[in-house]
């Protein structure tokens, strides 16, 4: 029994490696802890450490701010619209690319990844220059169109990984039993894809909700939550509210990411591997 448990543990890592690994984790989480801490800071316009005192009152103050709520609402709407488009386009692409080989397949693959592989500034300025050329004033839809473009890959990656593992014989069996293509999709393929669609959708949503660089080009005067935060950084008087909103943003994005991770557990999808 005991030896069994030891084998589960595997070999023990040398101390220096453990120190480096956990040190790395500490480094990754230290700023996040600071965000959590400073949200309760009593001090109004500075960041002195140790904190002067702790309070909950900025949470109330932030919740009463129209501009905060407006920015959150806009970000949620944009993320919903972008995720909707990404779900449709990503699923279509996955359906087309997962089994067939054809001329230009590699190029298609690259095209889907490009919007997140190239720096956001390229996507941003390209979209902006095209919008100006077409004389479109930046609005809600210009933001959503930009976001959808780099969100497709999230859905595509998750769905294509799932489809590749789905035995093709399932679809053949369905056809043998007399189902037509639509019925097979509805009753066989869709239930198989469901969690990967959900996971991909959640990741797309989170990606859009947080996006800043492309948005600064396509937003015009609209303020999504990240843009609101960026604007806040030049306003020392608003520090406490900014701190609280920063904590909210952290929490809002952490939950869906954990859910997406759970959904792809044990299916070998690396949910966030290619953000």
């Amino acid at each position, binding site marked *: 029994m005991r030896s069994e448990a030891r084998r589960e543990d595997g070999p023990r890592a040398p101390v220096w490696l453990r120190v480096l690994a956990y040190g790395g984790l500490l480094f990754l989480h230290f700023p996040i802890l600071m965000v959590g801490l400073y949200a309760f800071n009593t001090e109004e316009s500075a960041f002195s450490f140790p904190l002067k005192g702790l309070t909950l009152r900025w949470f109330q103050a932030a919740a009463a701010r129209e501009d905060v709520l407006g920015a959150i609402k806009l970000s949620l709407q944009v993320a919903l619209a972008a995720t909707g488009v990404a779900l449709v386009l990503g699923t279509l692409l996955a359906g087309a690319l997962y089994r067939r080989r054809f001329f230009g397949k590699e190029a298609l693959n690259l095209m889907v990844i490009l919007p997140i592989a190239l720096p956001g500034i390229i996507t941003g300025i390209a979209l902006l220059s095209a919008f100006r050329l077409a004389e479109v004033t930046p609005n809600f839809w210009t933001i959503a169109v930009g976001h959808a473009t780099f969100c497709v890959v999230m859905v595509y990656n998750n769905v294509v990984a799932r489809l590749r593992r789905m035995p093709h014989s399932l679809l053949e069996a369905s056809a043998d039993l007399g189902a037509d293509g639509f019925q097979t999709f509805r009753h066989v393929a869709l239930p198989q894809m469901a969690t990967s669609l959900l996971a991909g959708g959640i990741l797309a949503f989170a990606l859009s909700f947080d996006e800043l660089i492309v948005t600064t080009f396509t937003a015009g005067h609209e303020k999504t939550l990240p843009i609101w935060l960026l604007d806040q950084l030049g306003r020392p008087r608003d520090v406490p509210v900014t701190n609280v909103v920063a904590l909210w943003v952290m929490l809002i994005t952490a939950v869906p990411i954990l859910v997406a991770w759970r959904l792809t557990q044990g299916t070998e999808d*690396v949910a966030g591997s290619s953000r």
Partner: protein
Amino acid sequence: MDTLPGMALPAPARPRAGLARTVANVLYRRRTLYLLLLLTPPLLWFGVVYLGSLLSLLVQSFYTFDDFTMGVTPELTWANYQALLDAANHDIILRTLAMAGSVTVASAVLGFPVAYYMARYATGWRKGFFYIAVMLPMWASYIVKAYSWTVILSKGGIIYWMVERLGLLPALEWALALPGVGGSSLSTSNLGRFLVFTYVWLPFMILPIQAAIERVPGNLLQAAADLGARPAQSFRTVLLPLAFPGVVAGSIFTFSLTLGDYIIPQLVGPPGLFIGNMVYTMQGSIGNIPMAASFTVVPIVIIGIYLTVARRLGAFDAL
């Protein structure tokens, strides 16, 4: 077989007659038509929205910007590209490249031990714990992370407090006085900017390395040990070469993301623009889209070269 009580079997799909069936049958037989139908919406979207925009950007990089009227005319010129070679613009490009390079190296050095531990030693719940612990900061809001660092690095903030407590203030001041690294304080120094960049992109390096190490079969290392290699030897001659594509894959992210960033250079570090800042200012307050466009071509070309080299090194299989 009888249905077990309480376990409803799904009703089998009933074969239908009619339009849907006819369409489905046609699509089943004409595979190319089916493929085309699937691909048309995404192709239209990416073709028009994305590639179309990139193309329009490329075309506009040859347009003429009139300094006096502040207007753009569609007369083609090389002037915007020639302007890239001006000393000031040249500096911007080199500054950005140097930062992207050092951030990439630092991420690889910091990230490798974490990835190595995750892949080789973390088992059971620890594996999940490490994975989540890397993924959460990666997905946490970019602007919040950057903001948090301005808080951390500020004078009177936690780093200054710790340094003071440890009596290391003279050491910090010495480091800040170094040319190229320093600045008047941490938050206005290249060191601070480098820290923030490394922090923000580090998870993008850890995960591909971890995936690459995970794919190295354990028995290869056992074989190396059986053949008499010391742990350090088998690490260097067996594991490292096999894990290297993962490092290259991660470096694509760290390099490309640093190259195109313009928010962090704005928030932390000394004055002196990055490529991204230049693009943003050019298109924004000045309205010189042609110059902004030609500046954008620089990272596109650099990343194009980078990706070609990375492909040679096998990084795409490690993505």
